[in-house]
């Protein structure tokens, strides 16, 4: 019943952590965003509000976009996790189309919330490659941008979905 170790896949790489309070171990109270940022140095996911309200810490966990600040790392045992760092092609360095669309539309200001928005969008498009505007609204409703970049975010999404449609 007590958990000695946990394993998870992050961006295609497998990790195993010993659970406990000694140096180097993952204590039960560690959140997923802390593990990603401090242990794996995947600092794309940001810890901002720390209460699941802003979406800056969004990662994809077993296919769903989740706030990694409101999850314990021990709870992610066995999970397949994708962070913003896992989007680009590891061999060629080519960006994910969503990332490219954001650059093309300059869909960010300070950029702090952008990785979360992109991951929420990625989860949506994985499940639903041609969402309606309402569905995009809904999928991004848990992500906040204080620089008001979201108008450009919607521009980027429109470009992206439109481009996809043209390609069909």
């Amino acid at each position: 019943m007590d958990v000695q170790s946990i394993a998870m896949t992050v961006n295609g790489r497998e990790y195993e952590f010993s659970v406990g309070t000694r140096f180097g171990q993952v204590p039960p109270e560690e959140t997923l965003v802390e593990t990603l940022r401090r242990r794996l140095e995947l600092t794309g996911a940001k810890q901002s509000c720390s209460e699941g309200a802003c979406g800056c810490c969004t990662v994809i966990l077993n296919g769903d976009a989740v706030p990694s600040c409101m999850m314990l790392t021990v709870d992610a045992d066995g999970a397949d996790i994708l962070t913003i760092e896992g989007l680009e092609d590891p061999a060629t360095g080519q960006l994910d189309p969503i990332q490219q669309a954001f650059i093309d539309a300059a869909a960010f200001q300070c950029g702090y919330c952008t990785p979360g928005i992109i991951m929420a969008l990625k989860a949506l498009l994985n499940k639903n490659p041609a969402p309606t505007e309402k569905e995009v609204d809904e999928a991004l409703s848990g992500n906040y941008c204080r620089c008001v970049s979201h108008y450009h975010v919607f521009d980027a999404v429109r470009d992206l979905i439109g481009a996809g449609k043209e390609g069909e």
Partner: protein
Amino acid sequence: MKHFDYARPDSFEAASAVLTAEKGSEIIAGGTDLLGVLKERILPEYPSKLVDIKHIEGAEGIAFDGSTLKIGATTKLTAVAGSEIVKEHAPLLAQAAYSVATPLIRNIATVGGNVCQDVRCWYYRYPHEIGGRLNCARKGGDRCYALLGDNRYHSVFGGRKLKTTPCQKECPASTDIPAYMEQIRKGDWDKAADILLQANPIPAITARVCAHFCQDRCNRCESDESVAVSHVERTVGDYVLENAARFYAPPAAESGKSVAVIGSGPSGLTAAYFLRKAGNKVTVYDSKEEAGGMLMYAIPAYRLPKDIVRQQTKALAAMGIDFVLNTQVGKDIAPADLEKRYDSVFYATGAWKRRIVGLAGEELTTFGLDFLVEVEKWFSGRLGDDVLVTGGGNVAMDVAITAKRLGAKKVTMACVESRGEMPASKEEIARAEEEGVVIMPSWGLSKVVEEGGSIKGMELKKCTGVYDENHRFNPQYDENDKIIVQAGTILMAIGQLVDLSFLDEKYQLQLTRGGLIAVADDDEMSTSRPGIFAGGDATLGPATVVQGVATGRRAAWGMCHYLGVPDCKGGTWTGATRNAFITYDPDAAQKTEPSRLKELPAPERGIDKEDSSSLTREEAACEAGRCLNCGCYAVNPSDLSPALIALGATIVTNKREVPAEAFFTEALCISEALKPGEIVTAITMPSVKGAVAHYDKFRLRDAIDFAIVSVATILKAEGGKFTYARVTVGGAAPVPIRLTKVEEYLVGKALTQETADAAADLAMEGSLPLAHNAFKIKQLRTYVQRAIMRLA
């Protein structure tokens, strides 16, 4: 987050075993509520272990078996919101789940977690890091900060009581003060009187003389001044005496038992009342000419008019209580005879005996209590010009003020205590000083200065400390620091002793300990002799009137218990019922100044005339408006709970199945709704396919916000008329509420705007907006109307 251990059991049984075995362990499901609570450390207690139930097989999933829809506790809200099965059989539940927070949260939040989540009140959630958590009433503290603070998202239907309020806790008689204040605000003086009488049958007396410990702990003291409980009580007490025939009615049936009460002071009168109420034949014995004990003889009439005491004893006599006066037990009737004649005997003989200090010349001084009892004898100017009163308690104050009013030119009061330690109430000290009594704190008695058998004064020695390191009364003196106070009369008010000489030797041996009658520590005031009970000063030493009342009532219960006589607790009031909402008056509560009694100006005060006059009923009601009726005024935050109540769902735990309505409304906190080791495992509900079922939620931001008001409705109509209605409201009251009146009204009514308007009016019934949240009621109206008009 602070450290906690973590366990991941594979069954609910195993999870329950951990919860039961390990104190401080708590369930974690999705964690979206709990992690917020832990990160901000909003609760004084932090779990030592989290028990994760997400890995329990079979705990997640949605199934419909043809009649019942079942949703596992760890099913994610995203799954509920998107489930075709849920949309078909319980569409409002899918809507409610969809309305929760954000899609990101819903991807990890669970059904079980949603129904077990903690309130969102911002005072309750105030982070510990920012200046310390607010220990509100819901967290084991006493106050609700929303009452006088920002309450725009709080309840519009009143609060709920969580525990005994500090005022009631402080009252030795456990008077439910907020409950009777509430009845006064509602204009129901009879009910207010009933509540008061259930704790204390002599309110007109206690209101005038009680030390009112309740006011010291009133939550208002934190922001302005205590509610003037004593003044309000006084008006209720006067009301009770004005309507004595009604409030002191003889019992409906006789118990067939007879009891004797020895002593007619506060304790004896109280015991007599409760004993008589239970149907016993009660005989009260007193050695004095008139009933009332210290109330009649020791407390000066300017504080407690004799007429009030006489009215009170007359009212009690009219209940059928016999008063046998001028009769001294031990002289006129032996304790053994009492025992033979009565089925049970209660001794409340008080503390009337002089305490002898052993000073040189002490025999020339006068006992302060005798001075008060025989005050008429002193009318003729025997007092002299200079009077010294020794002692610092309320009796000493009464003695000093009485002496002053009898015409003494100079009254000096010396007590061993320092000013802050003086046992007298602040009001009495202030009154004494106002009338010119000179108080000398921290002076002990050394010797009487006499000349040829007449008093010239008293030598005092400086007291350096009253209590020793063990907090025991043990005054220390500086023998080198002495002064002489000139006085022709010395009145000794340094405490009274209990005189138990009326008990013969056999009884004394059996009943007494340390100069008092020893009683069992079982709240029934029984002595070591079966059937013999005791209370008041005889068991406590010199104490307060309200302690006499409290012990008298406990003894009456104990005696009824001993006699096998049922229910003498009296009255119909059983305290704030768990499901009832408590209310206060947000406008009147803003008044920071308490009402004050009208007092005679100092020069007009005398010995026989009462110094102050009672508040009128209107003034008392206004003061009752300052009572905040402390409880919790936060609202239930769950979106699923109102929907589940409307659906007639059942909460399934590892131990039982509970109807959703009972689960969400009977207990205020989830820690009370669930028994130890109990875990919500699933939720089941019947299908409402075919009905128009909706969950409407008002909030400012569509994502993340909790409901400011939500309305769950299930409606059916046929031929233009409603045939079925379920309406439940969330976010508006401490628990979700079912609007049964609206439901009953709707059935058979036409699908029209008039119907919707009338239903909306009914929905508002009993609402009580706080200072900043009247808008919620408007919103509630609109949502009820809208839900009804969907069918039109």
